[in-house]
C-alpha cells in the first residue's frame, strides 16, 4: 500500500481541486437532479394538461432520474400559475412550468403583468401541437364554409371562442380579413361551453382547439382547421386555412410545453442541458406514445419541439397578439 506522505497529499488534493475548478459544470450536472422537480401547472387538476403532464413525465422521469411533482395553480387564463412560477419559485432548474404556449403567451401579450417579462422564461420542450379549428353544430343552418362566408358578408356572425386571447380567435380574425366576412367573437369561458354554444345555437358557430372538438363527436361538424389537419376524418376531413385561402398563417395551436426561468438557463447551463437532452430522449422512447394514448391523447398531436421551435412559436404569438390586440381587448 502506498504511503500518503505530504508530497503525495498535496499532489492529490491539487489535482482534485484543479479538476473541480476546471470542470465545475460537469461535476455539478453529474449530480443533477439531486431532488424532485417541481412543476407548476397553471390549470386545474384532472384536466387535459394534467393528463398530458402525467403521460409525459411517466417516461421523462426515467430518463432524468427524478420524480416530477405537479402543483396546480389555475386562474385568470393561466396568469396565476405564471405569476406563482415567476414570483415564488427559485430559478435553480428544480422548478419548471408546464403551460399551454398559444393561449398563455397571448394572454401575456394582451395584459402584460408588471411582475415579469415574457422573456424572463423560455419554453424548451414542446409535447404536443393541437391546431385550432372552426366548427358548427350538427343542426346549424351553416353547414359549409361557403355558407359561413356568405352569411358573414350579410350580417356580423356571432362566433363562440373559449376566450378572447386564444389562437383560434386569431385564426378567425385572419379568416375575416381574408374573406371580408364579419365576425363578432363571443368568449364562452372554456371548451365545454364553446362546444355547447355552437351545438345549441347560442352562437352561429365556434372556434376551438381541435382536441375538444374531436371529443364532441357527431354533435359538431368541423369546416376549417387553422393549421394542418393531421387526423383527417376525426375532423371531418376539414381543409387547412392556408390551403383554402393561400394564406401563410402560422399554425394556431394549443401547444403544451415545459418552460423554465431564463435565469436558471443562464446560471445553470449544465442543468438545462440535462433537461433538454433527457426531454428529447423521452420522445425517442416508443413507450411515450403508449402513455400518451393511454391518457386519451390524440397520437397525431404528439409532436416534439425544442427551444428553437418553441421560441419561434412564442414570437409568432406575440406578433399576432400585438396585431390583433385592439380586437381582442376592446381597447
Amino acid at each position, binding site marked *: 500500500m502506498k504511503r500518503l506522505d505530504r508530497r503525495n497529499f498535496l499532489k492529490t488534493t491539487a489535482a482534485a481541486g484543479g479538476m473541480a475548478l476546471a470542470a465545475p459544470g460537469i461535476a455539478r450536472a453529474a449530480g443533477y437532479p439531486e431532488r424532485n422537480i417541481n412543476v407548476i401547472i397553471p390549470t386545474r*387538476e*384532472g384536466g387535459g394538461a394534467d393528463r398530458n403532464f402525467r403521460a409525459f413525465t411517466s417516461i421523462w422521469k426515467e430518463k432524468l432520474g427524478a420524480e416530477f411533482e405537479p402543483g*396546480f395553480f*389555475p*386562474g*385568470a*387564463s393561466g*396568469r*396565476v400559475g405564471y*405569476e*406563482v412560477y415567476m414570483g415564488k419559485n427559485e430559478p435553480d432548474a428544480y422548478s419548471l412550468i408546464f403551460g399551454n404556449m398559444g393561449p398563455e403567451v397571448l*394572454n401575456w401579450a*394582451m*395584459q402584460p403583468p408588471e411582475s415579469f417579462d415574457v422573456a424572463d422564461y423560455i419554453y424548451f420542450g414542446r409535447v404536443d401541437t393541437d391546431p385550432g379549428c372552426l366548427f358548427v353544430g*350538427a*343542426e346549424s343552418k351553416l353547414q359549409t364554409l361557403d355558407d359561413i362566408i356568405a352569411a358573414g358578408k350579410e350580417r*356580423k356572425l*356571432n362566433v363562440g371562442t373559449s*376566450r*378572447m*386571447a386564444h389562437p383560434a380567435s386569431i385564426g378567425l380574425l385572419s379568416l375575416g380579413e381574408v374573406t371580408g366576412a364579419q365576425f*363578432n367573437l*363571443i*368568449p*364562452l*369561458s372554456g371548451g*365545454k*361551453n364553446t*362546444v*355547447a354554444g355552437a*351545438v*345549441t*345555437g*347560442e*352562437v352561429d358557430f365556434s372556434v376551438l382547439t381541435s382536441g375538444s372538438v374531436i*371529443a*364532441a*363527436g*357527431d*354533435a359538431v361538424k368541423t369546416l376549417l382547421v387553422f393549421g394542418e389537419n393531421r387526423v383527417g376524418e376525426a375532423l371531418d376531413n376539414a381543409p387547412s386555412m392556408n390551403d383554402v385561402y393561400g394564406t401563410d398563417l402560422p399554425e394556431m395551436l394549443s401547444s403544451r410545453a415545459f418552460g423554465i426561468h431564463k435565469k436558471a438557463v443562464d446560471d445553470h447551463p449544465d442543468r438545462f442541458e440535462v433537461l433538454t437532452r433527457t426531454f428529447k430522449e423521452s420522445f425517442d422512447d416508443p413507450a411515450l406514445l403508449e402513455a400518451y394514448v393511454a391518457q*386519451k391523447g390524440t397520437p397525431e398531436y404528439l409532436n416534439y419541439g425544442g427551444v428553437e421551435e418553441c421560441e419561434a412559436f412564442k414570437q409568432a404569438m406575440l406578433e399576432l397578439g400585438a396585431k390583433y390586440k385592439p380586437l*381582442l*381587448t*376592446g381597447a
Partner: protein
Amino acid sequence: MGETATILTEVFFQTLNYWWVIVPTIFLGLIVGGIPGFSAANTIIILMPLTLAMDLETGIVFMVSLYCSARMGAGIPAILVNIPGTAGAAATPLDGYPMAKAGKGQQALSISFVASCIGGLLTTLIALATMPILARVGFYMHSVEMIVVMLFGISLIASIAAQDMLKGLIAGFFGLMIGSIGTDVVYATPRGTMGFLELYDGVPLIPALVGLFAVSEAFIIIEKRVIISEDAEPKHPNWQDTIEGAVTALKRWWHIIWTSIIGLAIGVVPGAGASIASFVAYQQSRTYSKTPERYGTGHPEGLIAPESANNGVTSGTLVPLLVLGIPGGATAAIMLVVMQFHGVSFGPALFENQPKVGYGMFMAMAVSYLIMFLTILPLSRYMSHVTTIPTIYLAPLIISFTLVGGFVPREYMFDMYLALAFGVIGYIARRTGYHVAAILIGVILGPLLERYFLLALKKSDGDVFVLFSSTLGNILWVALFMSLILPVFFNWRRNRRSAEVPAE
C-alpha cells in the same frame, strides 16, 4: 318501444346487482358531500385511477351513485350546523337550520331525504321518458333567457329583505358587489382584486359560503351551550320524529314534484347548475305559498324546494351529456372523460350504438335514489345528535372543517383566510340585522347574471333591447313580473280579508 322497455328492464335488474357498489358509495358520497369543499367531481378526480380500472358498468354505477349521494349529503350539515357543503345546498339552511335550532333537526333531515330521493327519482324517470324533448331545452335557453332565470333567483333578496327592506337590499347589493370582483368575462380585465392574484377568477364560492354561513354561525353558537334554542325541548332521537318528517314531506308531494321539475329544467341547460336551481325553486315556492311569512323560520316547504330542485338538477345534467355530448355540469364533465376512456361516444348516436350505456346511467341514478331512500332515512335519527353536542366542542370543529373545506377546492392558503374574513363579515351582519343569505345570493348569482348579461350585450353589439328579443325570454319576463307582483297582491287580499273579519 317494446325493445326499449326490454332494455330498460334488463338494465334495471343489472343495476340492482351492483348494490354492493352502490351502498358503500352512498356513504362515501354523504361524507364528501357533507364536507365543504369536497364534491362528487373532485372525489371522482381523486379516485380516477380506481374509476378507470373498473369495468364500464361498475364505473358508471359508482360515479352516478356518488353524484346523487354527494348532492344529498351537502344538505346534512346545511341543516344541522348551517354549513352548506356545496353552493347547490346554499338555500337549504334558510329553513333547514331554523328547524334544527328549534329541536326539529331529525324531522328536517327526514324531510330533506324524502324530498331529495323522491325529487331525484321522479326527475330521473321524467328525464328518461322525455329525453329527446328535454335535450332541446338548451337550444332555447340562451344568454337572454338565462338572465331572466337569474333574476328569479336574485329577486329572492327582495323577499328576504321584506322585514327590513333597507338592510336587506344593502346586504344584497353588498353581495352583488363582492360577486363582481375578478376579471370580466369578455376581456378578462381585473376588477376589484386589490392586487390579489387569487381573486382574478372571482371570489371563490366555497370560502364565501362556509365563511358567511358556518364560521359566523360558529361565532354565534359559541355564545350558547348547544345549537338548539334553550326554549326548544331537547328530545332523545326517536323513530317517531323520522316518521313525522317523512309524512310531512310526503303530504307535500305536489310541492316536491314541481320544485324538482324546476331543478330538472335548469339542470338540462349546459352551464346552469344546482345553486341557481335551488334559489329559483325557493323563490318560486315562497311566491306561490299561502304562508310566505313562514319562510325563513323553519317552514318545511322552504326546505323541500331547494332539496328537490338540486336533486332534480342531478338527473338534468345527464341529459345534454348523453343526448348531445355536452356535459351539463362539472361532475358530468368528469364522467364524460372517464367514459370516453372506456370508448363510449356520446351524442345522438349513443342510444343507437350503446343503448345500455345511455339507459344504464339513468337506471343507476334511479336505483341509487331507491337504495338511498331505504338506507339514509333511518340515519336521520342518529345524525340529529349533532345539534345536542355542546358548542364548546362543536364550534371549533365547525371552524376546523370549514377552513379545511375552504382550502380544498384550490389548495390556496389565501382561501382559508378568506373564509375567516367572510366569517367576520357574516358575524357582523348577523349581529346588526343584515341577512347573510341576501349577501350570499349576490355572491353566488351575481357573477352568473353578469356573465349572461355581458354575453347578451356582446352578441347584440351593445343593444340593450336584446333582452326582449326572444319569445321565450319575453314569456319569462312576464312570469318574472307576475312572480314579483303576485305576492304583493296575495298579501293585499289577505290583509283585506282579515280586515273584513269582525273582531270578536
